[in-house]
C-alpha cells in the first residue's frame, strides 16, 4: 500500500482534522461542544477500539499531552507518544518524513504539538489521516479554545454578549488566537490587555469584536470572564520585560478581581506562575476555574478524537 503522496502534492487536510478554530465552521464548533458534553471519561464507550493515535510532541506539555492521551485511552484507542528527544527527530528527520513514517507504521490519526506555526498544516497537506493541532508555535491551540468555551458554558448561559478580558502575553499566545476566533464568532466581546510588547495594536485586527487597552481597570470593568496568560519567556527572543513593572500593572490580585462582575470566572490555560501573572489567592479562589479547565480538557479532547476518526455519532 502506498500512502505517500507525490512530494509536490498539496492536498486538503483529511476529514476530521482539526488545524485551527479560524477556518472551522460554526456548526462544527457547536457539534464538538455538544459531543464533549456527552463524553464521560469514567463511563466511556470504546468508540475508538484498536485505533492507533500518535501523540507527536515537539514541545513540552503536561496538560494537553496527558489529556489527549487519557481521552484516547478512555475511548479504547492505542496511543504512542513520540517526543523530539529520543526519536529520529533528534537525528534531523524532517517533519514530513516523520509523518510518512508514522503513517506507515499504521497511525490512524496524529496529534501534533510543534514550536513552528503551521507545522500541523504542512503535515495535513501531505498525509491522508486526520491531523489534530495540539498547539503550533504562536498560531493556534484549538482544543484549548474548545475546552475554554466548554468551561465558560458550564457557568454562563451563552457566549453572546459576554464581556471577556484577556490579560497578559497575547502576542505569543496561541490560546488567545484560538479563543478570539471562537468566542467572538458567537458574539462575545473581548478586551485584550497588556503592555504594547505583549499586546500590539495589530492584535485587534484578528477578529471582529476585539479591542485593546493598556489599563487593567478598563479591561476588568463589567467582565464576565477573566482569562490570564503566562509570560512566555521561552518565546521572548531577546525582548526584555521588567517583571516588577508587569506585576504592578497587570498581576491579577483579589482586589482587581473585584473590579469585574461579581459572578465573573477566572481562567488560565496553564501552566500558571503564582506570584507573576496572578496571586495564589486568585489561583485558588472561589472564582478560579483553572482546575476545571484541565478537567474539561478530557471530554473535549474525547470529542475531538471521536470526530477525527468518524465516530462522532
Amino acid at each position, binding site marked *: 500500500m502506498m500512502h505517500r503522496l507525490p512530494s509536490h502534492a*498539496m492536498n486538503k487536510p483529511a476529514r476530521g482534522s482539526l488545524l485551527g478554530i479560524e477556518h472551522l465552521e460554526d456548526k462544527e464548533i457547536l457539534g464538538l461542544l455538544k459531543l464533549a458534553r456527552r463524553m464521560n471519561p469514567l463511563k466511556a464507550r470504546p468508540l475508538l477500539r484498536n485505533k492507533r493515535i500518535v501523540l507527536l510532541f515537539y514541545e513540552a506539555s503536561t496538560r494537553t499531552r496527558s489529556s489527549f492521551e487519557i481521552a484516547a485511552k478512555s475511548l479504547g484507542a492505542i496511543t504512542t507518544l513520540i517526543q523530539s528527544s529520543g526519536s529520529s527527530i533528534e537525528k534531523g528527520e*524532517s517533519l*514530513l518524513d516523520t509523518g510518512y513514517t508514522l503513517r506507515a507504521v499504521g497511525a490512524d490519526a496524529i496529534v501534533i504539538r510543534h514550536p513552528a*506555526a*503551521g507545522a500541523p*498544516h504542512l503535515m495535513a497537506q501531505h498525509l491522508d489521516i486526520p491531523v489534530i493541532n495540539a498547539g503550533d508555535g504562536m498560531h493556534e491551540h484549538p482544543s484549548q479554545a474548545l475546552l475554554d468555551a466548554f468551561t465558560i458554558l458550564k457557568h454562563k448561559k451563552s457566549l453572546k454578549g459576554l464581556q471577556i478580558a484577556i490579560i497578559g502575553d497575547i502576542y505569543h499566545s496561541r490560546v488567545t*488566537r484560538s479563543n478570539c476566533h471562537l468566542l467572538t464568532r458567537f458574539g462575545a466581546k473581548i478586551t485584550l490587555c497588556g503592555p504594547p510588547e505583549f499586546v500590539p495594536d495589530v*492584535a485587534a485586527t484578528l477578529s471582529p469584536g476585539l479591542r485593546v487597552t493598556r489599563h487593567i481597570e478598563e479591561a476588568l470593568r463589567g467582565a464576565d470572564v477573566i482569562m490570564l496568560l503566562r509570560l512566555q519567556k521561552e518565546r521572548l*527572543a531577546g525582548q526584555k520585560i521588567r517583571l516588577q513593572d508587569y506585576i504592578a500593572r497587570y498581576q491579577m490580585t483579589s482586589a482587581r478581581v473585584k473590579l469585574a462582575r461579581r459572578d465573573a470566572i477566572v481562567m488560565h490555560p496553564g501552566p500558571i506562575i503564582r506570584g507573576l501573572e496572578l496571586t495564589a489567592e486568585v489561583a485558588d479562589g472561589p472564582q478560579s476555574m483553572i482546575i476545571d479547565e484541565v478537567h474539561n480538557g478530557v471530554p473535549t479532547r474525547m470529542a475531538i478524537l471521536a470526530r477525527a476518526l468518524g465516530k462522532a455519532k
Partner: protein
Amino acid sequence: MGNDKSKTGSLLIKGGHLIDPAAKINAPMDVLLRDGRVAEIALPNNIRGGADGKFDARGLIVAPGFSDLHVHLREPGQGYKETIATGTAAAAAGGFTSVCIMPNTAPVVDNAEWVAWLRHPERAAVVNVFPIGAATLNSRGAALTDFAALQRAGAVAVTDDGRPILDDEIMRAALRLGAELNLPVVQHAEDTRLTENASMHEGPTSFRLGLRGMSAAAEASIVDRDVTLAQQIRESRLHVAHLSTSDALKAVRRGKRGKARVSCEVTPHHFTLLDQDVGEYNTNFKMNPPLRSAADREAILVALADGTVDAIATDHAPHATHEKQVEFERAAFGITGLETALALAITKLHREHKIPLTRIVELFTAGPARVFDLRSRGSLARGNFADVTIFDPKKRWTFEAGKSRSLSHNTPFDGWQFTGKVVATILSGKIVYRAD
C-alpha cells in the same frame, strides 16, 4: 557568452513593432543584425540586401534584450538548486539576454578568481552573465573586498545580498571606494537587528498566522541611512535591491531629488502579490524582503509608472523541494522568477494598471543597463550588441512550474494564466530561445 565571436552571420527581423525606449523608438521597424551587432534599423521593407536568416516578427514586439539585475544562479557550491547553465536557460526563456548574478554562493564570490570562474565558458551560460562581487569578505559585513580586483575580473557591482551592509562605517567606506571606481554598491536593505526569526511582513496576517514579522521600518531605515550617505559622498552610486516598501521609496525619491546617484529595482512578486497571499503557510510565498501590504504595493505601482523605479529585477532564487517543504519558519527564503517576469509585467502592470508597454520595456532594458553600465546593451542602436527580445503582448498562456527550465520549481505562479509571452530571445545575433 559569445558576444565577441566575430562572425555569426546576419539575421533580419522583419515586420515587427520595435520598442527601444533609449532610442525613443516606438514604431514598426525592421532590424538587421550582423556579426553579433546591430547593423541597421529601418522602416519596414527598407533594408536592402540579403540576410543569412529571417525572423518573421509580424504582430510581435521587438525590444532590446532584457537585463536582470538580480539573479541567484547558485554556483559555486549549490548546483542542486540551480546551475549557471540551467539558470541562464530559464533566463533565455524569460527573454533575458543578460543576468547579473549574486555572490551569496558557497563559497561567497569575494575575490577575482571566483568572478573569472563564473564567466568561464565551461559554465555553459546561454546568455550573458555579469557577476556581482561581494562587498565584504565572506559577506560578513566586517572588511571590504578588493573592489578594483573584482571589477577588473568583470564584476559590475558589489553587494552582500542576502544580508545587509549594516555597519555605518563599512557602508560609508564601500560607497567611497565604489565612487573612486565608478562601481555601484547594491544594498539588501534589511535591519537584521529588527528581523530576527521573522519570516514574513509584519502586519495583521503575520499576527493571525503567529509568525514573527519583518517591519517595513526594517527596510526603510537602512535605505534612508544609505541615501543620506550617498548624498554625502560625491560620485558614489547606491542601488537599492528588491525595494518593497512605501517608506523606502520615499527615501529613494529624496535621494533622486537631491541629485544623488541612487537607483532601485522592484520585483514582479512585489508588484503582484500581498502578504495575505501567504495563505495557510505556503512557503512558495516566502521570500526576503517579504510580500508587503496593499499600501506598499500601491506605492510601488505608482513608482513603477512615474519613473522612480529604475528596473524590474526578478530576485530569481531557486531552492530545492526539501528546502521549501518544511515548516514555514524553517523554509528557505526566495522564489524563482525568470520565466514569469515579463508575463507578470504585461498582465499586471500593462493590462491591469495601464502602464504603457514602452515604460515596461524600459524597465527591462534601458533602465537596468544604465544602473550597472552594461555598455552597448539595453538599446538597439546601430553597433550595439545584437541582443534582442521578441514577445507577443497579447498571447494568453498558462505557466506550469513543472516545465520550467530552472532546476527548481519554487514559484507561487504555478498554474497562473498570463497575457504576454516571450517568443524568441536572440543573443549576439543568434536565437538562443524560441517558443514552441
